[in-house]
């Protein structure tokens, strides 16, 4: 019999692990790169209008602002999905598409408010919740089927055609079941049900944080659970992964863990399962930090950044403003505000 593939190895073969999992440094480097690419694009646009605008008149968007804007629009996907009555799987996939898209492109190249619509449409398609493009665009004001579809291939290309995303929802569900088994003497099922419901809401937060790039779905699910009820999850993890329990059931579990970690030899079994437990707890706690520190920019912040992005994307707007400036000094701010509210 040929060797068996462990479940971890299975995950390592997914595109989510191979293409969309990064260390913190990698992720930061990527963002710096994207930002400078976006800035270069803006300079290029300015160059074309060299004789009309001076090069430094436009304020560029920083990495932090880019992140804030993307987070803001990720949250808008959630609202839009609710409007369409879509399952959480679709919503989560759409958010992940949008965020991955901006790991390849800058907001100074494509405005998120356009990209997010296409992402949602694409996610609905790829998650088997099909809505025809006509009925989709009919329910969103100021769109046409063409305006949504025009970005579709762009997004697919940026995603490198990897459409399958593993979300923490199902692992969370799995832990909900396994908790019922492991802690059956200590917890009532409906108490666990409440923890589960709360943790599920927290997952929405996790999807917008960078946790999805640094942790696997089960780890994120555990982090959400632990955030809701620290003691119970620690108890669960220690029962599940700690050695030296007399209980036969738990011993069996340990054996399974050993196999999962491949490298473990019988002689140092206990030591390694011990370190496995510590490692998982450490990882989950690290993940909790990410979930806690998710970006949640206010609408005012977002509109502020959005205005900058508008000028970056279309420098000729500055000319328009100047013209308005000369005719009516007071009308300036009003004009801009009007634009803003239209665009959002």
């Amino acid at each position, binding site marked *: *019999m*040929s*060797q*068996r*593939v*462990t*479940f*971890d190895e*299975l*995950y*390592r*073969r*997914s595109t989510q*692990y191979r293409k969309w*999992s*990064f*260390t*913190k440094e*990698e992720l930061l480097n990527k963002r710096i790169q994207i930002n400078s690419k976006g800035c270069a694009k803006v300079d290029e646009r300015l160059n074309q209008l060299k004789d009309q605008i001076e090069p430094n008149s436009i304020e560029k968007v920083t990495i932090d602002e880019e992140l804030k804007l993307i987070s803001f629009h990720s949250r808008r996907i959630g609202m839009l999905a609710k409007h369409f009555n879509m399952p959480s799987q679709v919503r989560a996939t759409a958010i992940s598409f949008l965020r991955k898209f901006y790991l390849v492109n800058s907001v100074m190249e494509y405005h998120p408010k356009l990209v997010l619509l296409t992402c949602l449409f694409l996610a609905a398609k790829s998650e088997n919740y099909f809505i025809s493009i006509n009925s989709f665009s009919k329910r969103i004001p100021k769109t046409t089927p063409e305006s949504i579809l025009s970005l579709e291939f762009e997004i697919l290309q940026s995603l490198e055609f990897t459409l399958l995303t*593993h979300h923490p929802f*199902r*692992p*969370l*569900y*799995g*832990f*909900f*079941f*396994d908790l*019922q*088994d492991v802690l059956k003497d200590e917890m009532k*099922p*409906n108490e*666990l*049900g409440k923890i589960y419901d709360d943790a599920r809401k927290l997952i929405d937060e996790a999807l917008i944080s960078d946790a999805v*790039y*640094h*942790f*696997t*779905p*089960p*780890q994120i*699910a*555990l982090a959400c659970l632990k955030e809701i009820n620290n003691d119970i999850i620690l108890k669960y993890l220690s029962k599940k992964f700690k050695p030296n329990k007399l209980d036969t*059931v738990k011993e*069996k*579990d340990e*054996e*399974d*863990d050993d*196999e*999962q*970690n491949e490298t473990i030899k019988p002689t140092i079994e206990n030591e390694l399962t011990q370190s*496995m437990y510590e*490692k*998982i707890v450490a*990882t989950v706690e*690290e993940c909790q930090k990410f979930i806690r520190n998710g970006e949640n920019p206010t609408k005012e912040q977002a509109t502020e950044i959005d205005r900058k992005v508008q000028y970056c994307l279309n420098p000729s707007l500055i000319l328009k403003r100047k013209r308005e400036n000369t005719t009516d000094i007071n009308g300036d701010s009003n004009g801009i505000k009007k634009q803003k509210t239209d665009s959002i």
Partner: protein
Amino acid sequence: MADVEERQKDMCPICKTDRYLSPDMKFLVNPECYHKMCESCVDRIYSLGPAPCPYPNCGKTLRKNRFKLQIFDDILVEKEIDIRNRILSIYNKIQDDFDDLQSYNSYLEEVEEMIFNLMNGIDIVNTETKLKQYKEENLQKIDLNNNNREKEFEDFKKREEFEKNLKIQKLQLERQIEIEEKQLNELAKKEILNKLTTSNDINQTISQVKASVLKKSSARRKQLKEIMTSLQNSNNPQQEQHQESSSSSIPFTPFNGDRELKQNFNKLSNYYDPFIDELKLKKDYIAAGWKSELVYERILNEAFIGIGCFIQDEKKNSILLSS
């Protein structure tokens, strides 16, 4: 040119009789030299005993009893089939006679080599002696295998015959039933009319007549049912074998090897979950093959897929390795 060839194909080269003139002409060949000639020529030349082949430059002595009907247009095919039959009646081992596939394959290769040699006239003397030697050495085994093969063939024939008969019987019965039913219906109509002239209760008479009709036709139905079951039974043994062989083999997986069978959790038969409990009662779900155990298993499995992947560490290592 092609026309001439076409005509020659349908013409006996000895007496130049054309198929155009005698449409039921048959060509015969003799395995000695495979020269074809028509039936009447064979009768004419060989009825008095062995005689040389009439083809120029052939000169082989042929006998009438060895002549046979030419089935394939290409004479080489005809020749190969004869050689093959001859060799395979001697080299008649089957795979079960060998310990492993390797030796069986090399045996097959050897057989093919010999056929090829005889076919193309390479090293005929050696091949013939080899054949003879093998035949002498394995006389008993050859006989046994040949007997087995014949028996199998006979069994197969018998079964086929049996099934065929059953099918014919079934068809006949069905036809008969159809005809009889028609007649009965007509009779019933007439009877109803007749009785209606005498009696007053319409419904009762009609139901009476109908019941008597049903009784008559049900006897035939029974017979048909019996035949159907025996037909199914004769087919079944093969099907059962199929099922056994397919269920024992491990399914193909695109991964290198197979998935881990040990699971990271104890599966309970039931969990507390209002959502799934509700689905359990839905008839359309159950009818479509939905099972709560499968849902539990899938969801629990996903909880542990990737729990031991520590991206931060692993990716760091891979970066170090690549640089």
